[in-house]
């Protein structure tokens, strides 16, 4: 087995806002093995995107700052690298795919040039050869007429085609890790399924690891090997996907699963919602962030923040009462 490909340890990221300092990511730790797909799942403000951005040090400073932790990738702590060294990793050994392909593509450059750029930059491949490779990559992500499409501009592409181009760009330097932040949220359902299947297929073929940031529990179930559930900036539950879905050990995860309608269930039953509102990161309670919405919460939950602890083999939960849930 050996060392994990990526090891995030006690990562914390803060933002200075008008209303004080907000800790968007709070003491987050997880490991990722080569070839594995990890889903980080959570709602808006849970810290899932900031975690992903922090790994690649893409947090705008100010107002943001990574205040603690390590991100060990290939034996080195990315948080300790100088700007030059981290740039040599981004788009090369770790690639990122964003939700809005239109805002991450340069509208004034051809798609081919943009896919060729990292190949030229990181691999010192001559431009002509790099453009040829771009055409091959576009064919690999099954863009129709890939050869002629290298000369197209992003606005000539549909949403799905742009996201295919983004995946081609991410694959350009054969990264060991791809981080995809809500890569299909802006796309139609049938196109979403195409893009996610493609992403899974190309990462598997290259034995790349994939971090999939999403709010969609269906997407997690279809594509992820492992899951980290985030709430209020912290990981509240982590483990293999099958284990988490079959025996969730955190009331938030249990609540989420009860609150979403499933296509394969008899329609007509009432959903069981999680009452209350998502937490305000500027005013987190002293104890468990989920306590104000949790039906099981007691005195200890309101006063003491539960730490992420082993609840079952290879299954972590940050709940004082994890042992009583689905035991």
């Amino acid at each position, binding site marked *: 087995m050996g060392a994990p490909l990526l090891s995030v340890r006690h990562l914390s990221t803060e933002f200075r806002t008008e209303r004080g300092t907000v800790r968007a990511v709070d003491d987050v730790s997880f490991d990722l093995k080569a070839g594995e797909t990890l889903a980080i799942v959570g709602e808006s403000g849970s810290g899932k995107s900031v975690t992903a951005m922090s790994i690649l040090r893409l947090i705008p400073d100010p107002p943001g700052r990574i205040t603690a932790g390590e991100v060990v990738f290939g034996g080195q702590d990315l948080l300790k690298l100088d700007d030059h060294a981290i740039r040599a990793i981004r788009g090369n050994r770790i690639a990122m795919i964003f939700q809005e392909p239109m805002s991450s593509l340069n509208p004034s450059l051809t798609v081919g040039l943009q896919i060729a750029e990292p190949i030229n930059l990181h691999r010192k491949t001559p431009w002509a050869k790099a453009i040829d490779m771009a055409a091959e990559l576009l064919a690999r992500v099954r863009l129709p007429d890939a050869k002629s499409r290298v000369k197209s501009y992003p606005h000539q592409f549909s949403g799905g085609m742009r996201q295919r181009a983004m995946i081609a760009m991410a694959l350009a330097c054969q990264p060991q890790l791809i981080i995809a932040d809500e890569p299909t949220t802006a796309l139609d359902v049938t196109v979403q399924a195409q893009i996610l299947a493609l992403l899974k297929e190309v990462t598997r073929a290259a034995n790349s690891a994939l971090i999939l940031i999403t709010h969609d529990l269906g997407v997690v179930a279809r594509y992820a090997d492992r899951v980290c559930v985030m709430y209020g900036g912290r990981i509240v539950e982590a483990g293999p996907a099958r284990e988490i879905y079959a025996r969730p050990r955190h009331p938030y995860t249990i609540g989420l699963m009860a609150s979403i309608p499933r296509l394969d269930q008899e329609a007509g039953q*009432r959903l069981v919602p*999680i009452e209350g509102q*998502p937490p305000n990161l500027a005013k987190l309670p002293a104890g468990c962030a989920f306590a104000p919405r949790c039906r099981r919460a007691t005195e200890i939950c309101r006063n003491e923040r539960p730490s992420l602890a082993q609840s079952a083999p290879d299954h972590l939960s940050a709940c004082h009462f994890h042992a009583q849930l689905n035991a």
Partner: protein
Amino acid sequence: MPSSTPDSVLPKTVLEVRDLKVHFPVMAGAVVRKQVGSVKAVDGVSFDVRRGETLGLVGESGCGKSTTGLAVLRMIDITSGRVVFEGQDISGLDRGQMRPIRRRMQMVYQDPFGSLNPRMKVSEIVGEPLEVHGLAGDRAVYRERVASLLDMVGLLPDMADRYPHEFSGGQRQRIGIARALALEPSLIICDEPVSALDVSIQAQVVNLFQELQERLGLTYVFIAHDLAVVRHISHRIAVMYLGRIVEIASRGELYREPLHPYTQALLAAIPIPDPEVEASRPQQIITGEVPSAMRPPPGCRFHTRCPQAMDVCKSVDPPMREMAGGRAVACHLHAG
């Protein structure tokens, strides 16, 4: 809620839409503007909605589901076709004639952030329709009415004097619903009312819609792209593709036995939140994307992406075929 007309004399079918078309002209030319084409956003849509029922309209972007909702409310111009609301053909009415009818058909929008006026207090937002229609009455009656509307959607009466920015997304959507209820409508068109909300909040709002329907006998047209949510809340579902309804089925049939290849593709594309189920599900993903509504494909509009397309599909537009149990499908495979 007291209604001006007793329910017993109201027709069973609240809404009847027949061959509805909404075409938007596409103009070009910098000096002389002329029409160079049209976007057939809705192109021959027919359906009925019965009293107390929820009809779901589902489909991907550009299918015409939101335009259908706006056309039914006469908030955009109808190119042709008929909209019959509570027995009255409203397709030809002018603004003045629509006014009294608007009271009985309301809309809840997707964006709880953009659809509420940030300068108005909650009491003004919720009570405005009463004022517009001259039903506000004196101050005390008005305040009481607003308080009861807020209570109906699960908000506290003392929230009436606060502004929208003080509320979360789910609460804002409740404010939007209270406003829609102010005039005691019989029909509410809900356009993606939960898609902007966090997953944990969606269920709260979905449940509220269902509770209000049971209490007030409301009829809904529920428009959304999320088939799992639509199927959960709707009694019947109309699946739309490029300006047309391709299939109408009850929520049970739709999942058990989808007839149209597009419905099948849509169902297959939606992952079920259970890794065990997903591992055993055949993953048939259709290729391609929705073509432009300016140039829909000839014949069946879905034939360019249909895994079962036949020769006839490329040239002959399949008519909607009514089947037993109120089902209908527009597909040559089910031509009978």
